[in-house]
């Protein structure tokens, strides 16, 4: 079943068109790599998927048309998404535990239950010993793992990750990829934007590639 459906999708800023008349689909439970060179439009597509940019043409996420979605529905939709940013976007004045608990606060979880779940997820991302630290006190890899913990804690329908391993050392990058695989095995659809495909990757995935403003579905 289609979770994301794009038909004649065009994305543009005032400065010009980034993605033009592209068509693709992502099914529930898919593991998707979105590749393309720098500035090709990977971040723009992800932004359109979480409603930061209004698309032209059809971009449907679940039951919502992102071109016409209302602010309140967008807020609801985002509660079913887990977003991982290249710059992590952790709240600097909150410690790691609280940052990871954020999606559960938003969903209205009881503080104790949220804390329990956050501790479990932080154990999975190997950050149990850093729960009281603030983002600035962690390395890039650790911050990215905390961001992934935040993205998966509420079992979203889809994780959108924008260049999650760029700038990370080999160990952190491999750990981060394992986390995405684990999330996908839990049934979460994962979309990872990256310059290129990872060298050794042993689960089946879908490959979307952006070139000259067009998105191609590669086998």
């Amino acid at each position, binding site marked *: 079943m289609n979770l994301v459906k794009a038909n004649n999708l065009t994305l543009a800023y005032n400065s010009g068109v980034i993605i033009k008349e592209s068509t693709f689909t992502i099914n529930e439970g898919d593991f998707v790599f979105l590749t393309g060179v720098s500035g090709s439009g990977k971040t723009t597509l992800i932004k359109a998927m*979480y409603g930061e940019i209004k698309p032209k043409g059809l971009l449907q996420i679940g039951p919502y048309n992102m071109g016409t979605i209302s602010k309140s529905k*967008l*807020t*609801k*939709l*985002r*509660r*079913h*998404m887990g*977003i991982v940013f290249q710059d992590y*976007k*952790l*709240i*600097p*004045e*909150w410690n790691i535990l609280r940052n990871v608990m*954020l*999606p559960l*606060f*938003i969903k209205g979880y009881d503080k104790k239950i949220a804390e329990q779940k956050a501790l479990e997820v932080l154990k999975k991302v190997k950050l149990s010993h850093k729960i009281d630290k603030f983002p600035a006190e962690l390395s890039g890899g650790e911050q990215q793992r905390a961001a992934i913990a*935040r993205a998966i804690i509420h079992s979203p329908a889809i994780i959108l990750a924008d260049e999650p391993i760029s700038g990370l050392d080999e160990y952190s990058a491999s750990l981060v990829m394992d986390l995405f695989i684990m999330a996908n095995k839990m049934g979460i659809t994962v979309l990872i934007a990256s310059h290129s495909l990872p060298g050794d990757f042993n689960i089946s995935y879908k490959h979307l590639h952006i070139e000259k403003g067009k998105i191609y579905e590669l086998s």
Partner: protein
Amino acid sequence: MNYLKSHITLILALVSILLSIFLFRIFNKILFLYEKNIVNNYSIVIVSTSKIENLNYPEIEKITPIDIKDQIQRLQQKYKNIDFSKIDLPYFYKLTLKKLPSPKKLEKLKERLKQKAFVKRILTHSSSQTKIYNLLMLLKILTKMFMVIVGVLGFLLIVKQLEVWKLSHSERMYIMELFGAPFWLKGAALFKIAILDSLIAIILTVSFVYFITNSFLFTKIISDLNIILQIDYIKEFLLLLVISFSISLISSIIVVVSKK
């Protein structure tokens, strides 16, 4: 120290606004009571050829005949060769007004009274009345100006605080928005600050106000003015509380709403 820095601007702004509102209300009350005192003590005297029951002028509170028996007796003792009882003496009346008239209104009233055929003479004591009136008006204008100036300064401080809040809270609110946080959760931290600062501002203002209004100097001035000033502290506290909460919560809502 950081806590103080981030809170001092809003607290200062709120205290200045609340104080200006409170002082404005108290000054107005004092002026009103003082004006009432003056009006009670002020009257126009008219000399009439006939008896007057009622003048039906909206600005006149009451008309009271002046008993001149004592004066006649004194005159009679002084001028024994004149029989005052045979002289057709005019009637004297004291007109008490509803409120202190401006010199212009007083002059108009005088003109209207003059047009009555039975009115022979009018004594308005306009010179001293004008001085008092002008002094009162000056005080009223000064209190209004004081309130406006302090209010504007408070408003500017709040605008500055809004800018600071926008800068320091925008990142957190943006991240929360990306994860679908509702409005109240995005602004929760700001709302907490707003409520806390409002409470601090209220405590400071009410303490200051209580100290001032119970000070020796203030009570002496009130007593010298010969007025009884009753301040309902609970009512004033509740009013200031509502104003304080409204200003700080509206400010924080503006920050949450205007976040891009």
